């Protein structure tokens, strides 16, 4: 009785420790999201250098001075 309780406690502890430690490692070594960062950089650079002004007008609300309408 004592033995099985001990071993199941040990098992439980080991699993808990693993469950806590592994994600912690992942969090610390989480890879840098290179693609997302590139996208973010492009978006900010387009805004700062005012590139792609026409695309903004096309993708947003229709341009107020749209000759087609």
């Amino acid at each position, binding site marked *: 009785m004592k033995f099985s309780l001990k071993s199941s406690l040990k098992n439980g502890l080991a699993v808990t420790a693993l469950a806590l430690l592994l994600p912690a490692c992942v969090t610390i070594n989480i890879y840098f999201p290179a693609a997302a960062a590139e996208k973010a*950089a492009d978006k900010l650079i387009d805004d700062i250098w005012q590139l792609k002004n026409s695309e903004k007008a096309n993708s947003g609300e229709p341009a107020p001075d749209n000759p087609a309408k």
Partner: protein
Amino acid sequence: MKKILFGLLVIAGLLSNQLALAAADLELNTPAISALKGSMQQRHGQLAGFYASGAVGLTRDGLIAVKEASAVALKDRQSLNSLVASENNDRNALYKEIAIANGHAEWEAEIRSTFAQRWVQKAQSGWWYQDANGWAKR
């Protein structure tokens, strides 16, 4: 045995959570980032001519530098220097703020190097940038 299996499941769940977070877009909508963006946007009107004349170039570390001071009249050089300094302050702050906004202050260096590449990629032809061999022209 069941407990171990359950533990593994929990671990797998936590791992996939982390991956999902990492795959999402970076957070850019913070007051600090918007303010920096606005100030850089405004300054760009003054800097654009200097990029085109080669007075200022893009550096490898995501900043800008005076490349050819002689392209600028002597009397304007001091204001050019302060323009470059202000721009670099904003750029440094921008990289830091993006890292912080995404909960990973340690990403600052990688964000900086990502920007360094993208600034150059998006530069107009005729603008100067720094690479491993020194200054080059787009």
